[in-house]
């Protein structure tokens, strides 16, 4: 293999790799603005200038291909001086907006100003003025004065979103990014430009001025917008989710996520409709109850029905663990009917990230489906039987979208309906018992994505049962160093529990406890019964998931 020497280290590389790629693979950081591993090379920021032997001028590491025997210096005096000069050039016309800029705290330019800049300005003249607060599209706001013309957003729209809506207009230091006349930047992936913008030029209209980044805690998780399961970070302040940002995962979403996932999949967590504590129906109205009463009532009612009068509807929105314990409960009651609701919208996917299945865990729900002899798994058949009065008790796990009205009509005929829900919706109106389910942001668990990759979610929002400090949730600076009188310590905590926990408690009330104390124990129980899950635990799934299915699962792999 050919070898290159960077800062005295001899490194092997593959033919066709650039210097900056070899360096970053080997942990040598070369500062850069315009270079991005997933985008084409534009070589315009000049920040990655390095000294290469046999090349008379300084060369940019992002467009210089590594050759055998090349000797690169990234820390020599001339390189340091060149970087200082580039930083000075970028900063002379960059407004000192940091105190009011959303990017502050996660700004490449700000970080580099500390690391690579000389720390004072020699510019006495007035800065260049350009348009500020330009709405480029419905979700992205642009500030041309902050912009350093790295062209990452333009290249992203062109190359990744395959929708070249952005361009530079004007020339020289009057240049700025714009959309074409009478158009707006409304691509379904537009907000990724906010992430890759190395400065605060592009900001999210959804998140603008909500929070400083260091005031939020950030928790690795998975987006629930569709079955792709894009890896995300959940950013929380005052115990409220402020935003989601994509988390790098080369096998799933690379560096991206769609705007729908980013803006529409977390707001239900703190919506007014949130179920806070168990509810029981009294005189045709749901009344707040307590856990003991709700569990006792459900256990008592469920026992009354025969197995062929009981139907279980699992959920593609609930985790693998929730679905597994749900299946165990169905088995415990020997229920004859078990299915789950599918959210596939044909034609709604694209060839980038968005899939047609709008739930995060359909594959997981399918894989852990309860299937004993004589059990029907057909959802339409189940609802037909509910309508005919043959099925009298229905137990429904978390459903994020409303049911079709024919299903709701059928449910009105059932004698007993128990529902796990995060939010009140039309379905909960038909419930006799509503258990408050923890949302994806309030529990541990795992989702199986469309490609068969099992990925973990972690709690980011504290609930009554889940304490931020004691249960090891991510903490922001304020969480760590604030006092209990601080605003951010007083965010609303909902009285909700993960479904597996509610089901375990119910099983105990039914006299046959599962003995699960953590969701990992549910998964370990599953791995011992289902060969598809091998001997997995949370440690093995890790931060970026693990591929467990290479093929369509077979019948034997189900319980």
């Amino acid at each position: 293999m050919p070898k290159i020497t960077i800062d005295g280290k001899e490194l092997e590389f593959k033919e066709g790799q650039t210097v900056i790629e070899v360096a970053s693979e080997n942990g040598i950081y070369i500062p850069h603005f315009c270079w991005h591993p997933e985008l084409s090379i534009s070589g315009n920021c000049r920040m990655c200038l390095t000294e290469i032997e046999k090349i008379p001028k300084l060369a940019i590491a992002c467009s210089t291909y590594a050759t055998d025997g090349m000797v690169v210096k990234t820390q020599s005096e001339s390189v340091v001086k060149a970087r200082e000069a580039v930083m000075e050039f970028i900063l002379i016309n960059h407004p000192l907006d940091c105190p009011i800029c959303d990017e502050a705290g996660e700004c490449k330019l700000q970080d580099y100003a500390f690391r690579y800049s000389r720390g004072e300005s020699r510019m006495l003249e007035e800065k260049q003025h350009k348009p500020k607060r330009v709405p480029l599209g419905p979700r992205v706001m642009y500030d041309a004065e902050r912009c350093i013309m790295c062209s990452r957003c333009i290249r992203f729209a062109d190359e990744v979103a395959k929708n070249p809506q952005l361009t530079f207009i004007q020339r020289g230091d009057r240049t700025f990014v714009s959309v074409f006349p009478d158009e707006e930047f409304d691509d379904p992936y537009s907000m990724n430009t906010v992430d890759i913008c190395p400065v605060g030029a592009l900001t999210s209209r959804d998140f603008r001025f909500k929070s400083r980044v260091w005031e939020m805690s950030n928790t690795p998780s998975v987006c629930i917008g569709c079955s792709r399961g894009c890896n995300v970070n959940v950013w929380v302040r005052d115990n409220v989710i402020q935003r989601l940002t994509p988390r790098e995962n080369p096998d799933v979403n690379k560096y991206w996520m769609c705007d729908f996932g980013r803006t529409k999949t977390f707001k239900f967590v703190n919506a007014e409709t949130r179920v806070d504590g168990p509810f029981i129906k009294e005189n045709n109205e749901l009344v707040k109850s307590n856990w003991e009463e709700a569990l006792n009532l459900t256990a008592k009612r469920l026992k009354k029905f025969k197995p062929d009068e009981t139907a279980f509807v699992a959920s593609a929105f609930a985790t693998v663990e929730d679905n597994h314990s749900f299946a165990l409960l169905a088995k415990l009651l020997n229920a004859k009917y078990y299915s789950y609701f599918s959210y596939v919208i044909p034609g709604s996917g694209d060839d980038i990230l968005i899939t047609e299945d709008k739930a995060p865990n359909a594959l997981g729900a399918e894989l852990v489906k309860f299937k004993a002899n004589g059990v029907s798994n057909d959802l339409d058949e189940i609802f037909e039987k509910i309508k005919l009065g043959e099925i009298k008790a229905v137990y429904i796990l978390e459903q994020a979208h409303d049911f079709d009205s024919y299903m709701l009509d059928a449910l009105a005929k059932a004698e007993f309906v128990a529902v796990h829900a995060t939010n009140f919706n039309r379905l909960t109106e038909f419930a006799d018992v509503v258990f408050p389910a923890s949302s994806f942001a309030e529990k541990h668990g795992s989702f199986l994505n469309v490609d068969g990759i099992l990925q973990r979610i972690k709690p980011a929002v504290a609930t009554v049962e889940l304490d931020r400090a004691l249960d090891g949730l991510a903490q922001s600076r304020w969480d760590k160093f604030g006092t209990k009188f601080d605003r951010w310590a007083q965010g609303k905590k909902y009285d909700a529990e993960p479904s597996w926990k509610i089901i375990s408690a119910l099983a105990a009330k039914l006299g046959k406890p599962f003995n699960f104390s953590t969701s990992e124990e549910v998964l370990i129980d599953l791995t011992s019964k289902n060969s598809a899950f091998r001997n997995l635990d949370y440690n093995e799934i890790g931060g970026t998931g693990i591929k467990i299915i290479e093929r369509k699962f077979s019948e034997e792999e189900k319980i």
Partner: protein
Amino acid sequence: MEKIILPDIPDLNKLDVYIANGGFQAAKKALQMEPSEVIDIVKKSSLRGRGGAGFFTGLKWSFMPKVKTKPHYLCVNGDESEPGSFKDRQIFEKNPHQLIEGIIIAAHAIQAQTVYIYIRGEYYRWIQMLQAALDENYERGHLGEKMKQTFNTDFYCDVYIHRGAGAYICGEESALMNSIEGKRGYPRVKPPFPAQNGLWGNPTTINNVETITNVPKIIANGWEWFASIGAPKHPGTLLFGVSGHVNKPGVYELPTGTLLTDIIYNYAGGVPGNKKIKCVIPGGSSMPPLRGDQLEGIKMDADSLREAGSAIGTGGIMVMDEDTNLLDVLVRISHFYHHESCGQCTPCREGTGWMEKILRRIQSGQGTSKDLDLLVDVASNIEGRTVCALGDAAAWPVKFMITRFRDEFEKYVKKEVVIPVKNKIHSMKYTTYSVENIKLPESTKP
């Protein structure tokens, strides 16, 4: 001496006159040769590019792939955007057919069947003249598919004129290609070089108009003849566009290696009023200026000028007499490069504007000698760190004008100045400039 590009033949721009004077004989000869033979002759002639960089033309052609797998393109650069150069215009006007003949030979040498002549849009009249010449040659069968019969060959090529839209940067070869492709005039990051990845990703060669116009005579008279003219390492003649404080400004075709003083005093008629020369920019506005008291013995060819601390550039000689205010000159030049910087890469985009702002401040009487040092430093920070050569073009005039005429620039700056800063966010109302001798005004608190 014999003139290669602009011979003194009346009505040479008429096709019949051109043919009567031996026109298209070289093309006939070249089209019977193998492309590699043509390249070889041009290589041996040591013809160098007339667009500024002075690269060897034959060598450039030889970079094109020998085996043609994709279309090849020839771009002829007539953007002529460098201030102080106006030579290509003369060719369009006086000798367009020799250019066209050169294009045929060059296209054959690199096996390009499509040729674009990129001309600045402001040259509207000259575009019309050249288009008329092209049309005439199409009619006579010198271009297009009819070439096959006319020259008895398998090769033919089509020539199109592409009008520039007014950007200096589109004279840079890769920005020129982007412009032809209909894209923003941004220079490309090299490598890949045009010979591998040029127009629409295909092998492309870009030559200056004057360079191409030399080619027919080299083929007709042989490389030995051409190599014997002028300076040995940079042979041939050059079109020197002399402007500024001379009695007879204009374009003079002279052999390379002619003395600069000879051009100014003998051909251009000397300085009006017999004034002394303060400064000469020898190759278009981006080249380092020379001091008027150090002109003796400077020869006008690439190597001699490099030794003298400048460069041949496009051969646009700008003469400034002793009464010229060099600060005003430099402000004008910096304004040009600030206005024309494409804005792609950081040092040039930000640096050109900054330099102009500093110079304008000095012009308004608000500069100190620290500012001169700052200007030189800023220019040095731009130089050599940009995507294309415009960074150097913008930096050199500032850097060399100030270092070579420091004594004069010291006259334009003051010992102490009070600088009101308009950008109040940027600092307090008045900045404390980190020079001891600057005083804050008493009326305001910092």
